[in-house]
């Protein structure tokens, strides 16, 4: 059988989409387990340990439990919006993985194996999809017809709109250095000398990295910025009225967002899939190199997820006015100063 170029492209793209989707969903399930285990150890207890060896089958058990639970829909909800809100949240969380390059360029019949879609404005695509994801949370709270859910979603929406600015501005320095919004180009611009040329060290973007990290925690509604689901004041926040698989979709969306945010941090500041030892560890054929790059990418993502969990078990929650003041009066001005200094340094460098 002889396939044309377009058919090969179509077939490989479908395979890539399926594989990436399955891996992301599995990663989401095991991030939940990792969080429960690590937080358990940090609070001096075991965490889940009964289902399977070391509790490794716990995500499966949780999935079956959520799937078999009764799916309640309260009487006075705004039905269409109530149903579509979790779908929006989960779809937006999963789609943005499509533009993430998770390995070195490995061409097979002219198709890049380790990235679903190489888009010229990849970074903007991720930011755009993230900003659409707000609708899932905003609508879920409003359509539930429950004051706690509404309060939770109002908090989430205002928090996400506010921190989106600082998040976007913190990435501008990196974009200026790379001169492109293509994620592959951004990764290539910092892979020359290993860890020394990563944007966080060699690129002097360490301030931008910390601004990004803090805004990212706020964007994903994670501790210490988890006010939208502050259980002591709001029951469970925007997903109070959701049960069974609809609740699971919000839950998965939160963890998928964590993974996306970690991907972006890795790509922008930590050299993406490139090795921290530069080209010193280059050995083997294209397959070995590809596997090596994937190893480094997964390792970096894992480190970020661990940091997420570590922060959650360490820091207390912010107060609401502190949260807003921190975002608008501290993070945003610092991000703007960072942009000015970066562009000044680049202009001087170009002149000399």
């Amino acid at each position, binding site marked *: 059988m002889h396939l044309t170029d377009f058919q090969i492209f179509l077939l490989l793209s479908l395979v890539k989409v399926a594989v990436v989707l399955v891996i992301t969903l599995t990663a989401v399930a095991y991030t939940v387990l990792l969080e429960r285990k690590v937080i358990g150890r940090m609070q001096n207890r075991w965490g889940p340990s009964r289902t399977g060896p070391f509790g490794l089958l716990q995500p499966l058990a949780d999935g079956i439990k959520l799937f078999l639970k009764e799916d309640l829909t309260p009487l006075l909800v705004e039905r269409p919006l109530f149903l579509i809100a979790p779908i929006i949240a989960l779809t937006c969380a999963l789609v943005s993985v499509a533009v993430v390059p998770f390995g070195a360029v490995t061409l097979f019949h002219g198709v890049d194996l380790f990235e679903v879609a*190489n888009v010229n404005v990849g970074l*903007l*695509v991720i930011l755009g999809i993230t900003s659409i994801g707000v609708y899932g949370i*905003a609508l879920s709270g*409003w359509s539930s017809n429950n004051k706690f859910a509404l309060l939770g*979603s109002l908090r989430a*929406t205002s928090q996400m709109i506010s921190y*989106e600015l600082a998040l976007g501005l913190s990435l501008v320095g990196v974009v200026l250095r790379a001169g492109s*919004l293509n994620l592959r180009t951004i990764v290539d611009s910092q892979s020359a000398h290993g860890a020394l040329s990563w944007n966080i060290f060699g690129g002097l973007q360490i301030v931008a990295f910390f601004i990004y990290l803090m805004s990212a925690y706020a964007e994903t509604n994670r501790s210490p910025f988890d006010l939208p689901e502050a259980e002591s004041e709001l029951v469970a926040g925007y997903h109070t009225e959701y049960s069974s698989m609809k609740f699971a979709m919000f839950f998965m969306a939160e963890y998928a967002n964590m993974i996306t945010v970690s991907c972006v941090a890795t790509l922008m500041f930590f050299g993406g899939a490139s090795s921290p030892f530069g080209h010193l560890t280059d050995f083997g054929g294209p397959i070995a190199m590809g596997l090596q790059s994937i190893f480094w990418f997964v390792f970096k993502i894992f480190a970020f997820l661990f940091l997420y969990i570590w922060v959650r078990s360490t820091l207390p929650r912010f107060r609401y006015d502190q949260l807003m003041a921190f975002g608008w009066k501290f993070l945003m001005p610092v991000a703007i100063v960072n942009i000015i200094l970066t562009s000044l340094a680049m202009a001087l460098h170009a002149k000399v």
Partner: protein
Amino acid sequence: MQLALFIIFAALAIAGALNLLLQKHPINSALSLVVVMLSLAVLYWSLGAEFLAAAQVIVYSGAIMVLFVFVIMLLNAGEEEHTTGSRAAYFAGIPGALAVFCLLSFVFLRESKAFGSVQLSTAPVGAMSNIAEISQVLFTKLLLPFEVTSILILVAILGAVVLARKEERE
């Protein structure tokens, strides 16, 4: 491919716009407007204007419309009542809209050769991005309008702050 995309998303944009007018609840109208914005973004993308498409999604659907929805949720606006509309709207509006439609289609059909055409880029890797071109034009040819618009927005922000502060002093 490009034509199919255009037909699907143009139809979606028109359906969204009609739904915006026909819906009774403000939040449904606001969400229909989001659908219109997103379909327009896809149309920009299919014309090769990737940056414009992304900016459309981030600014309009992601920021402005979220604020709209946020305000509707916060005010808990109820359903509107549909009226039959004023008579002036029927006598002046419908012929006016028809005249504008005829004028626009006449101009577009007549000048269609001067507009040129673009193809959906099939190889984004290594292609010249239009971000550089846009910024080139924005910061050389159109510098004055750009700066004037910035000042206009700044004035609007200051005005909003002044209005919001007024209650505190009383």
